[in-house]
């Protein structure tokens, strides 16, 4: 199992190491990986039909409760099959679509990395592992969407997608950590038992919020939907993969996976219903206002995702069945439509629906595939789409608010049917156009995958019984146990009438509705109140604030940095000291003050006053040096010769360094500005006061002598040294010293690099 999940990463790594671009034949060979995985998951699926859920456990970081725990149950098997199945077709298709692309290696590397992350996500049984894969899908889709990295639009949309999904990821992480710590386990399987604990926990609302933020951003729910249409800047096979089987369904998977754990409450259901409902209506309307084929498809994907969330929100048995079947339906037709769009784009160079027509003459087989996909998306009988649609109506008609919910579903389905026709049939209808030049017939690698998907839609539509077993298994993993049999024919009833009405209205709408730039402009006029532009405005505000903040905090003047640091220090520590510390000076422990101590003290006072009032930098530096040497003397007086020696040498060196640096600086600093000096003086006084208070306070704290006693007792016994300080440095804490000299080295490299590079630039 672990091999199955991780081979994609290995392949990606291997591909990135290759220096020569893959040939078309080699890239076809790559598709053995998804094909092999698909077969593997089919065998697993057969195993779980007859037996219990399969578990795989590999130890990874047991101390943090992260283990490579994988689980194959109905839900994960269904998703694995979609990922690897559609993945196989996309791999095959890309070997022709991306043929002779300069960065084909990179493309396949990203694609297989993406596939592996998705597999890991749906198979993981450990929350933290699941989250790791969740973020990996965001990262790899960032690479995929921004694949054409020379185009600014492509880079931007990948950044938007990344920002939205990874931002949601943060929320999800918080949510998962809450869930895990409340349930006391990070294993999804064990968590099923703590469902009641979670639901009755006072933090349940917060958890739901975090969780939904993660799921909704990933699955492009309103108002986070806008990254998905942007994601079509990716090469078309990628869109096919992202939209149909994988990335965006990750959120759906997550919601389905957590339905038995967190679901079933009124908050859960209503949130899903409302968000899903708004999403499906909003983007279904949007989809038919677009003229770019990919745009149409992108919005219809969002709408489909809305339907799925909506169904999961309904929360009835029928709704779950409908959702599961609709996942399959949507994956089949949406992947097909995207692949067809890719072929059309590849052959004609445009995706503009107002220009494309009559392509059935030059690409007859593709036309068949397109029609099949469109029919399935419209839910014509004998396609799997029909079954899916029937089930949706059954779900909405069965519960409360039946009329309203069914009406919503009806509107969405009509619009989606129209969108499907627009993309799947529109380009092939009509007279042959002279505008469109088809240079050559597409290779079989490009028309076969969409045709296969179309045929599969028909096969599943005619024999829905094939899906019975797996749907039941998926229901089982969502803790729903009921017998079910998917049928083509449910008898004459209301649902059939609604279903037929949908088809009829869809056809009528398609015939009457011609996409045009004018209609798109109507939508564009409302653009400024769309969530996308609101998000952009928010982002602008953020950068604005960041710029101001940077200007304020990082103005490149060391003295201003120091001032801010000290001010912060004074406020924070000062606040703490005033609140918590009751200062008392214990005079008992003081020894008699010797005359030479008083002398040193007086010298220090004089030196400090010199530093403050001296108009010359050099004098000020010498003054600080004097203070340093006096401190050395104090160390000597109180029996710390090691400290004194180090202080002495360091102080000498820093003074030299200061002199070196400051002597050559321009003398623009106005040291005669009385106001600035007063301000700095007051600040410095406060810092000094606080340090003194802390020092006095430290004396009052009871000290624990065990550590120092240990060193004193064992220095000679264990390390044969009489100087405890040195023994600690080179023996007891030798590792620390070693790391310290390494740090020193890094500092030297830093200074060297910074100054040398700058001076060479000036030259």
């Amino acid at each position: 199992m672990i091999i199955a999940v991780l081979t994609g990463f290995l392949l990606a790594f291997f591909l990135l190491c290759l220096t020569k671009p893959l040939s078309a034949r080699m890239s076809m060979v790559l598709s053995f990986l998804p094909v092999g995985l698909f077969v593997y998951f089919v065998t697993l699926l057969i195993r779980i039909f007859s037996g219990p859920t399969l578990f795989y456990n590999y130890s990874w970081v047991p101390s943090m409760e992260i283990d490579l725990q994988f689980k194959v149950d109905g839900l994960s098997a269904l998703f694995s099959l979609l990922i690897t199945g559609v993945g196989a077709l996309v791999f095959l298709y890309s070997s022709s679509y991306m043929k002779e692309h300069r960065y084909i290696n990179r493309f396949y590397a990203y694609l297989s990395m993406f596939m592996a992350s998705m597999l890991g996500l749906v198979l993981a049984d450990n929350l933290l592992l699941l989250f790791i894969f969740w973020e990996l899908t965001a990262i790899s889709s960032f690479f995929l969407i921004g694949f054409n990295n020379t185009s600014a639009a492509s880079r931007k949309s990948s950044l938007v997608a990344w920002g939205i999904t990874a931002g949601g990821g943060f929320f999800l992480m918080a949510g998962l950590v809450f869930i895990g710590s409340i349930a006391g386990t990070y294993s999804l399987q064990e968590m099923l038992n703590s469902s009641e604990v979670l639901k009755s926990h006072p933090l349940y609302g917060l958890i739901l919020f975090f969780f939904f933020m993660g799921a909704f951003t990933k699955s492009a729910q309103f108002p986070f939907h806008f990254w998905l249409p942007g994601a079509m800047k990716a090469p078309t096979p990628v869109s096919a993969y992202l939209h149909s089987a994988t990335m965006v369904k990750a959120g759906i998977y997550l919601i389905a996976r957590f339905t038995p754990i967190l679901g079933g409450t009124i908050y859960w259901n209503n949130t899903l219903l409302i968000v899903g409902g708004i999403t499906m209506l909003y983007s279904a309307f949007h989809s038919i206002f677009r003229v770019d084929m990919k745009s149409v498809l992108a919005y219809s994907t969002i709408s489909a995702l809305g339907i799925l969330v909506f169904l999961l929100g309904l929360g009835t048995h029928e709704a779950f069945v409908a959702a599961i079947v609709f996942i399959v339906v949507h994956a089949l037709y949406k992947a097909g439509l995207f692949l067809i769009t890719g072929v059309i784009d590849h052959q004609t160079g445009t995706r503009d629906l107002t220009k494309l027509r009559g392509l059935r003459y030059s690409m007859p087989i593709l036309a068949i595939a397109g029609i099949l996909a469109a029919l399935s998306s419209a839910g014509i009988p004998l396609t799997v789409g029909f079954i899916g649609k029937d089930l949706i109506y059954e779900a909405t008609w069965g519960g409360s608010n039946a009329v309203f919910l069914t009406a919503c579903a009806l509107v969405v389905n009509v619009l989606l049917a129209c969108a499907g026709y627009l993309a799947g049939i529109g380009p092939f209808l009509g007279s042959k156009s002279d505008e469109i030049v088809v240079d050559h017939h597409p290779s079989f690698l490009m028309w076969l995958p969409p045709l296969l998907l179309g045929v599969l839609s028909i096969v599943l539509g005619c024999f829905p019984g094939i899906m019975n077993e797996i749907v039941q298994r998926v229901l089982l993993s969502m803790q729903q146990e009921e017998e079910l049999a998917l049928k083509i024919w449910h008898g004459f009833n209301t649902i059939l009438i609604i279903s037929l009405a949908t088809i009829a209205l869809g056809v009528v709408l398609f015939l009457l509705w011609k996409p045009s730039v004018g209609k798109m402009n109507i939508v564009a006029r409302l653009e400024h109140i769309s969530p996308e532009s609101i998000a952009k405005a928010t982002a602008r505000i953020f950068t604005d604030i960041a710029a101001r903040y940077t200007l304020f905090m990082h103005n490149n003047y060391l003295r201003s940095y120091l001032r801010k640091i000290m001010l912060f220090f004074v406020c924070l520590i000062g606040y703490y000291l005033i609140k918590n510390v009751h200062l008392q000076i214990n005079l008992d422990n003081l020894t008699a003050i010797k005359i030479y101590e008083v002398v040193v003290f007086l010298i220090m006072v004089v030196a400090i006053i010199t530093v403050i009032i001296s108009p010359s930098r050099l004098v000020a530096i010498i003054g600080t040096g004097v203070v340093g040497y006096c401190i050395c003397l104090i160390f000597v007086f109180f029996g710390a010769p090691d400290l004194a020696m180090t202080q002495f040498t360091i102080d000498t060196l820093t003074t030299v360094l200061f002199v070196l640096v400051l002597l050559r600086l321009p003398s623009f600093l106005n040291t005669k500005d009385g106001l600035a000096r007063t301000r700095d003086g007051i600040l410095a006084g406060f810092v000094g006061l606080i340090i003194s208070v802390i020092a006095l306070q430290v004396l009052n704290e009871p000290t624990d002598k065990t550590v120092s006693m240990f060193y004193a007792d064992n220095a000679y016994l264990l390390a044969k040294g009489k100087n405890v300080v040195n023994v600690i440095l080179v023996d007891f804490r030798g590792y620390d010293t070693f790391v310290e000299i390494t740090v020193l080295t890094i500092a030297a490299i830093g200074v060297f690099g910074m100054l040398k590079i700058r001076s060479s630039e000036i030259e």
Partner: protein
Amino acid sequence: MKILLLRTASNYLLPLLLLFSIFTLLRGHYEPGGGFVGGLIASIAFILHSLAHGLESTKKILRRPPFFLIPIGLAVAILSGLLPLFFGQPFMTGMWMDNPLPIIGLVGTALFFDIGVYIVVIGVTLTILFTISESI
């Protein structure tokens, strides 16, 4: 700062201070001193020389850029830690000779570690100071 007095003095002070720094380094295990302070004293010796004679002549004495010392020092330190591994003891175990050497005294791996620190400190200090005084 080419003062004759300082120039003349620094000619004698450089070897004396270097000797003193080695003395400080070697006595570190028993009396105040050690690699860190020793290294700083040696650096001061070179800096003093460079202040009196100019950077170029100090560089001539050093022959190579001070940066060169850093990897040597790090290597000496890590080798002294690795040495016990050859005798089947854990990394950085202190190992000692049975009998003290004349003048130097008892020698152990800790001393070599300290020598490594000494060399690194000289390298780092001189690199930073030389770079800064050259660049400004």
